[in-house]
């Protein structure tokens, strides 16, 4: 899998469009290409889910869009503007329109500031007067379900994980973003709290006309929230398409394997399909050709020599595979 190509992009109508994004991390043992020619786009009002296992580059992709990580190559267009070269000053202004929430909610909040200051900080940086900041902070706090004075003066360590994630969401909303990038926002939370946060993100998305990029390793979570889904492996895109289609009829063998590895709540089944063999190879020396071929049950000689490109397999569903799977339904 794990291919390149831009055949799945939908042109100018996208709010966010990423083309051939490359992010290198130079290290002592060599350079790791964490993201290797990744392309995707998100239309206004859409939610794109990005799934994959550790080391697939999903988090780096999200961070690179906000230019929190150095972009080595490729292009990023946000609201019609090419931003991969934008200077830091311009990025500061743009980041009011593109906000991010992170996996560890408590660690992402300043431990010494009370909640009301944390939430209003983005506005303070933007130069809003104090009374406006207080009003805006109270509004977003009630939007995320943390009403009243009780929470305003709390410190992050006094909050539960779910409450801290609500504060992080309030902080992101306070500056009025158009794009919200959520990096594993519910992975550290219990199932019952996770459901609360997912429902909250859905509500706020409708209320604030948000476009969302939702990064997660849990396929069930992504299914619930996404319009489109992008599956990544070892820095490459495997599959991109309508989430209902991708889940019902995965075209890429890796997508199939991921779905088959999710434990089912059915005591008779256990799993939907066979296990994937082996481990993810070292990102320092990824396999040539298709990066998934060393674990792929369908790999052939061609997969070692020729890197697959993104191709439309079925309407609205693209995969980077020489031997895509036929529909199962």
């Amino acid at each position: 899998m794990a291919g390149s190509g831009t055949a799945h992009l939908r042109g100018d109508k996208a709010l966010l469009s990423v083309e051939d994004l490359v992010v290198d991390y130079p290290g002592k043992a060599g350079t790791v290409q964490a993201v290797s020619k990744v392309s995707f786009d998100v239309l206004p009002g859409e939610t794109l889910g990005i799934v994959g296992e550790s080391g697939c580059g999903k988090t780096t992709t999200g961070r690179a869009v906000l230019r929190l990580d150095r972009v080595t190559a490729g292009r990023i267009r946000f609201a019609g503007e090419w931003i991969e070269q934008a200077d830091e000053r311009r990025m500061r202004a743009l980041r009011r329109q593109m906000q991010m929430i992170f996996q560890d909610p408590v660690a992402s909040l300043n431990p010494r500031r009370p909640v009301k200051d944390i939430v209003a900080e983005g506005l303070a940086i933007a130069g809003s007067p104090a009374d406006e900041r207080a009003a805006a902070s109270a509004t977003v706090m009630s939007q995320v379900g943390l009403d009243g004075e009780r929470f305003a003066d709390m410190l992050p360590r006094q909050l539960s994980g779910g409450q801290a994630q609500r504060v992080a969401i309030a902080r992101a909303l306070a500056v009025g973003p158009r794009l919200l990038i959520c990096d594993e926002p519910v992975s550290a939370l219990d199932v019952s709290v996770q459901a609360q946060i997912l429902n909250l993100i859905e509500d706020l998305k409708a209320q604030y006309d948000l476009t969302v990029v939702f990064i997660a390793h849990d396929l069930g979570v992504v299914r619930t929230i996404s319009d489109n889904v992008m599956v990544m492996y070892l820095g490459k895109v495997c599959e991109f398409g309508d989430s209902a289609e991708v889940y019902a009829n995965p075209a890429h063998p890796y997508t199939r394997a991921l779905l088959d590895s999710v434990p089912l709540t059915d005591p008779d089944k256990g799993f939907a399909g066979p296990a994937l063999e082996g481990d993810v190879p070292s990102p320092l020396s990824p396999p040539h050709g298709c990066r998934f071929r060393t674990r792929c049950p369908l790999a052939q000689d061609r997969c070692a020599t020729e890197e697959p490109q993104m191709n439309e397999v079925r309407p609205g569903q693209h995969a980077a595979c020489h031997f895509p799977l036929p529909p199962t339904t």
Partner: protein
Amino acid sequence: MSDERPPEAVSTQPLLRVRHLRTHIGTPRGTVRAVDGVSLEVERDQALGVVGESGSGKSVMARALMGLLPPRSASSGEVFFQGRDLLSLSRKEQSEVWGKQIAMVFQDPGRPLNPVVRVERQLTEGMRRQLGVGRSEARGRAVGLLREVGVPDPERRLRNYPHELSGGMRQRVVIAIALACEPDLLIADEPTTALDVTVQRQILDLLRRVQRERSMSLILISHDLAVVAGRTDRVAVMYAGRLAETGSTREVFDAPRHRYTRALLAATPALDHKRHTPLRLIPGSLPDPTELPEGCRFAARCAHAAEECLDLDPYLAPVGADHHVACANPAAAPTAPTTLASGGDPLGR
């Protein structure tokens, strides 16, 4: 959800029989009643799943069974293992059971391994000390164990340090170490939580396979109902230090009767969940473990709580052949609605 479980006809002695286990931990904020009256049994060759969210007491219970409790904690009750009460054994006798007859696998595959000691010594240390196996035989056994848990090229891996292995490989090595003294019971506490989904799958398959091949008993602890569903014979759902529901895995998943079990299942996003439809919520949060309520501990979050639920502590009562629920007003069984239920809603609303 008290532990007053009615006596059952016991034909053969179960491998592990826990009666009225309480583990209370002293903290600056007061006494945390982490495990507060749990009774359960694990038969030989059987896998028991224990499911609960953070704060349910599932990990503290596992540690109590392994004698790995934090300082300032006190356990009471009985833990009969092969007929002996572990809580009243001498230290010397305990050390023969823990680590040898009962072994444990933890969540983080990195931490239980010593980073500056090669895999070989970590694998052979236990069997040489506990079983008195000689050096060369221990080495041979170590190779066999690594092969059994699916580590490729085991002779070479013996010379590796833990950091030279991937997360999945490390967890396989940890499982091999746990198996080294041929335990009768393996306790796996969230063994796959830190792992990726395809690797989690491999480790879950491995645990079930070795449990069956070795005719060993297994306690598989997870916050994830699905992890436990396909891999256990019986399941116990924990909430706020107590068992809410217990029974054969098939019965509990096919016909959950406790409102909490149902709510937890409904809140789990499934692969076929219709997109952009809200997940069913469990309102509120766990009760403060230092100030637990008088009555049912789930009552404050339960849509079906009656007045009596706030005062009366429900006990585990039978609702099926192998199915017990601690609820004064359990949900109806989907196929045969009973008069106990207030309504026939299959989702337990």
